[in-house]
């Protein structure tokens, strides 16, 4: 199938799962009732359920699912690492520390915006810290240092969070654990607008970087020789993808797996061209997270299963299936296959120089 066909199908799927998400829940609604409510007609109670509860929640699922998938794809290109995902550089650790502090100090209970604000602040702190560490003497960003710094900063924040949890009461610990598994339950229109404000511009600008991101996959030096402003691309991509992730985490907690498996699944279906991959990853992630949220709140209704559990339960088998298929196709070019044309890169040559003396 052509990319444009995929895009059309996935766009249609987004609309369908959006409507499905509004229809299904503790009270199942008919399509007619949903449309009536969205147009401001029909029963006042149904209108409230649709407009104030389910619609913002469904929009949030689309934004966060799309944002995490897009950001995961960008981190994979930036770090040249198929294992990269949106939280790999410590954003989730920073956000969780902020969230847990807000919960432990009792701010989250009294002020509805305190939890997302604290989580977003923590995430920003992690983003800035990692970037500062990875900036080299000549103002470039070394992605190997970026990866190490991100993992270490994340571990540090996780330790901070563990410390706060260890001196908190049981109720705080339970809220914190639930927050860390992710939930779309708190979505209202104000949070939706906040997340939109970050997600849409960042997503559009990242899609605009698709071509240089393609070049990064074949190496920074070659990308530079082909005319890309490599340092600028790396910095902009890091900041945008991080903000995208931070906005999602602040609003919905840590939802795992989406940002790892959606980009890879799309890659297996349509190939590695980021001009196609990024928009399709956004749409696929939107569909996937909306479906996961429907399952999360209907499977044990009226109780909700943490959405992070669903994304893993549904996402992992699905992904393994795709992975098996790509390996089964007999190609050694599946995910994670690395190709080195020669053993002596610039670094190897430098070592050789030194040992020659």
């Amino acid at each position: 199938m052509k990319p444009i066909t995929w895009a059309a199908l996935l766009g249609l799927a987004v609309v369908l799962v959006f409507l499905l998400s509004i229809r299904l829940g503790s009270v199942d609604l008919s399509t007619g009732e949903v449309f009536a409510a969205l147009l401001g007609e029909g029963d006042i109670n149904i209108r409230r359920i649709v407009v104030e509860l389910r619609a913002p929640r469904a929009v949030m699922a689309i934004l966060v699912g799309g944002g995490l998938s897009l950001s995961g794809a960008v981190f994979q290109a930036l770090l040249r690492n198929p294992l990269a995902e949106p939280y790999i550089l410590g954003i989730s650790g920073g956000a969780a520390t902020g969230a847990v502090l807000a919960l432990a100090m009792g701010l989250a209970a009294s002020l509805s915006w305190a939890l997302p604000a604290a989580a977003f602040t923590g995430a920003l702190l992690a983003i800035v810290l990692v970037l500062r560490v990875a900036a080299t003497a000549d103002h470039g960003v070394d992605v190997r240092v970026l990866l190490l710094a991100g993992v270490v900063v994340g571990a540090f924040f996780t330790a901070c969070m563990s410390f706060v949890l260890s001196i908190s009461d049981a109720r705080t610990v339970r809220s914190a654990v639930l927050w860390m598994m992710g939930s779309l339950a708190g979505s209202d229109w104000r949070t939706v607008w906040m997340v939109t404000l970050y997600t849409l511009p960042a997503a559009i600008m990242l899609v605009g970087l698709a071509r240089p991101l393609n070049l990064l996959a074949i190496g920074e030096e070659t990308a530079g020789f082909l005319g890309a402003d490599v340092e600028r691309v790396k910095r902009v991509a890091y900041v945008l993808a991080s903000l995208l992730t931070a906005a999602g985490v602040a609003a919905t907690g840590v939802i795992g797996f989406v940002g790892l498996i959606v980009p890879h699944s799309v890659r297996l279906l349509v190939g590695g061209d980021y001009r196609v991959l990024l928009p399709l990853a956004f749409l696929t992630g939107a569909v996937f997270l909306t479906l996961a949220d429907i399952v999360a709140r209907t499977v044990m209704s009226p109780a909700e299963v943490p959405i992070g559990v669903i994304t893993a339960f549904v996402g992992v088998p699905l992904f393994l299936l795709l992975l098996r298929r790509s390996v089964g196709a007999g190609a050694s070019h599946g995910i994670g296959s690395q190709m080195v044309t020669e053993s002596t890169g610039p670094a190897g040559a430098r070592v050789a120089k030194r040992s020659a003396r």
Partner: protein
Amino acid sequence: MSESSASNDGSAALGATKLRVHYLNAPAPALDSVSITVPRGSFYVVLGPNGSGKSTLLRALLGMVPHAAGQAHMFGRPVSDWDRRALAREAGVVTQSESLAFPITVRELVAMGRYPYLGALQSETPSDKEAISNAMRMCDVENLAQRFLSTLSGGEIQRTRVARALAQEPNVLLLDEPTASLDVRHEMEILELLRASADHGMTVFLITHHLDLAARFADRLLLLDRGRVAAEGEPQEVLQGETLERVYEWPISVSNDPATGVPRVTPLSTSSGLRPPPAPDQDPDS
């Protein structure tokens, strides 16, 4: 100074004036007061032992090395004045190696050569498509178009990378040991392609360890020794036994090859080289 005026004038494709590169924490500079002129449309070959600064020179000529002092020029303009994309439309580069983070096909890799011509989301125009297919035809990788690079042989990968550089439609082609892993036929094919390109006006800047082939194909040779110019000029001038012995620290004989009419370089034997470990005493009684 004659050197600087020569590399400044527009007849030179590439030029360096007192170029010096000292990497951080390196005991000695990688390049030291290197002044060269690569004439337009010439086949210019750079020789030198491992670590003599060949690859650094290639990068410094295109302004890709931090901490460089002195001047590098392309078509008479300091390389620092060139916009990166404009530079990539003039100069195509094939580095020693690159590693792929994700699977990619031959067609996709060659198409990346059009990056400096295309806008952020612009699709390939007919002229882009033509440049890509021309480059693939010249390097004989058309029949591999949809294959993934991870399934190719070393020679096929190198030809694909040369094709990508040619898809840039450059006026200058710089290559760092592109034929190091190739067999005789594929090596000769690439060198003859480069020679023909130079005859059609393209400037070719080639780094290699093959002294004999350099002598046959090059218009001019540059011999680097520990970051400095040891010799520069026509193949017969540069390939002198004495000079080569001093630079490579190995006994070398230079003769004239009757088959090709160019110097033939033969490394001789020496008693001062590396030694194998002493053979274990297999029969202690003897």
